[in-house]
């Protein structure tokens, strides 16, 4: 039996890697991928607690996170396509029309 703290530390490390990618990357698709890493880290933590406490609720929540991730990816990638069509770039620093 693996102690729950191992899973929590792995989840925290993955979440921090996703956060690092979100702050350092400039490509908008890379930002979306970093968000996916963070979502998976949270899923791992949810399942770890669910398994530790013997309750199914955490796994149900992971199910909903999956649904939201699918919706987020679909809308996000549609926005990426629209952005590429209008600006010819995916660099988030270049999309600065609203910046003054």
């Amino acid at each position, binding site marked *: 039996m693996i102690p729950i703290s191992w899973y929590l530390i792995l989840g925290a490390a993955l979440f*921090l890697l996703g956060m690092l990618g979100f702050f350092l990357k400039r490509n908008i*698709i890379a930002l979306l991928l*970093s968000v996916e890493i963070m979502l998976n880290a949270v899923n791992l933590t949810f399942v770890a607690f669910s398994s530790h406490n013997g309750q199914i609720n955490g796994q149900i929540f992971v199910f909903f996170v999956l649904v939201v991730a699918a919706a987020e990816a679909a809308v996000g990638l549609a926005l990426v396509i629209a952005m590429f069509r209008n600006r010819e770039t995916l660099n988030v620093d270049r999309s600065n029309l609203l910046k003054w």
Partner: protein
Amino acid sequence: MIELLFVLFAAVALGSAINVLVQKHVLYSSLSLILLLTAISALFVLMQAEFLAVINVIVYAGAIMVLFVFVIMLLNLPADEDGVDRLRWLKLLGIPMVLFLLFMVVRTVWKVETDAPAPQLAGTAQAIGASLFTDYLLPFELTSLLILIALMGAVVFAKKDL
């Protein structure tokens, strides 16, 4: 034995997550993310959440990541151009900060006293389905609405002119 498997899959997960960040081209990043998802699914199996492990592979690696790869190939992107100057010191500052945060998290989690683990519960399709269609029926139905809205939103955003 289980500890060995955990270490193996955790190493794969961490390595592929780092690979997602260091790759210059997003296509390689997303392929590496698929490896990360597979490792996470293996960890789900170790925690006896079999249904979620299968769903993770089918929905995440099978549908969402295919969508990512499809869009990347559709746009025919060049490799990442190196960013603006301000990124250089952001990297110098950000990486130590993240390591410090990780250290704090590990120290906190290590000290926590947990209860003895409850009797093992198998996250089979039966258990998840029974809970999903009784206690969580309304949220479950609402997700179909969310999916519908996301579907229409994706079409509206990606279409050239309506």
